[in-house]
């Protein structure tokens, strides 16, 4: 029997990454939309480091599940389904005299990077789905 969690874990990982990249795209679009707004502070979205921490945590040799609400959390595995990207407003830097700190070049570079990342993730998702399809059809096409 296929374990439903391990069966869907790569897909879940990719889904969470795609969601995070989409949220980042939203914030990059918002930063660019407010490029001429006085006092606006840019917002950054990060998820790769957090996702890596979560995966490293789950890859530890000794994981302890809590089977009772009053257990203490020790080496608890993290549920990827609850993963959320981290959204931070960068208030420390000053870009211009009007208090706006959106950097056009940096933001455009991030836009391109984000788009490529989304495309490669979408590609990987398609590939893992077609892998499952091959397994379902017993290798026949």
């Amino acid at each position: 029997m296929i374990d439903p969690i391990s069966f869907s874990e790569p897909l879940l990982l990719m889904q969470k990454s795609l969601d995070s990249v989409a949220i980042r795209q939203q914030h990059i679009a918002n930063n660019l939309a407010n490029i001429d707004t006085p006092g606006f502070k840019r917002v950054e979205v990060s998820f790769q480091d957090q996702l890596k921490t979560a995966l490293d945590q789950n890859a530890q040799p000794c994981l302890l599940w809590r089977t009772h609400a009053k257990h203490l959390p020790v080496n608890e595995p993290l549920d990827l389904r609850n993963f959320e990207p981290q959204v931070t407003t960068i208030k420390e830097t000053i870009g211009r005299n009007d208090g706006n700190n959106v950097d056009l070049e940096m933001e455009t570079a991030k836009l391109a990077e984000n788009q490529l990342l989304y495309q490669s993730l979408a590609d990987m998702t398609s590939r893992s789905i077609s892998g499952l399809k091959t397994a379902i059809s017993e290798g026949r096409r």
Partner: protein
Amino acid sequence: MGAMTGVFSTLAISASALTAERLRMDIISNNIANANTTRTIEGGPYTRQRVVFAPRFDVTPSFAPMLSTMTKDGLPMGVRATGIIKDPSPNRMVYDPGHPDANAEGYVAFPNVNIVNEMVDLISATRAYDVNVTALNASKGMALRALDIGKA
């Protein structure tokens, strides 16, 4: 995922900026067109106008935005033009006693529009418009790629 997250809201963010920058360009064009207008309905020369931008969601923590954060509905993002204000700087006084709008001393009050400033603002508005079109296309490209997941 709430109502304001997802593909269409990302497109709406860029679209709000396109609207705002377009308005800014219209106002700049109006300033340039009226750079030498010495009489208006209100009397006196034309006054330079400026557009004021603000984020669509202001960061001042008030009840409604907080509530929508709590309910995971997401906040409306993007930019909006909150108003068009008149530039209070003084008029340009030009000595031209033959002008029909000249005052007793022979000076004519011309609008406080500086063509060079307007051109710089126009370039800045055009660049901002361009970059938001780029962002819009990028988001659209991502959405189209998402539609291809699972195909082939």
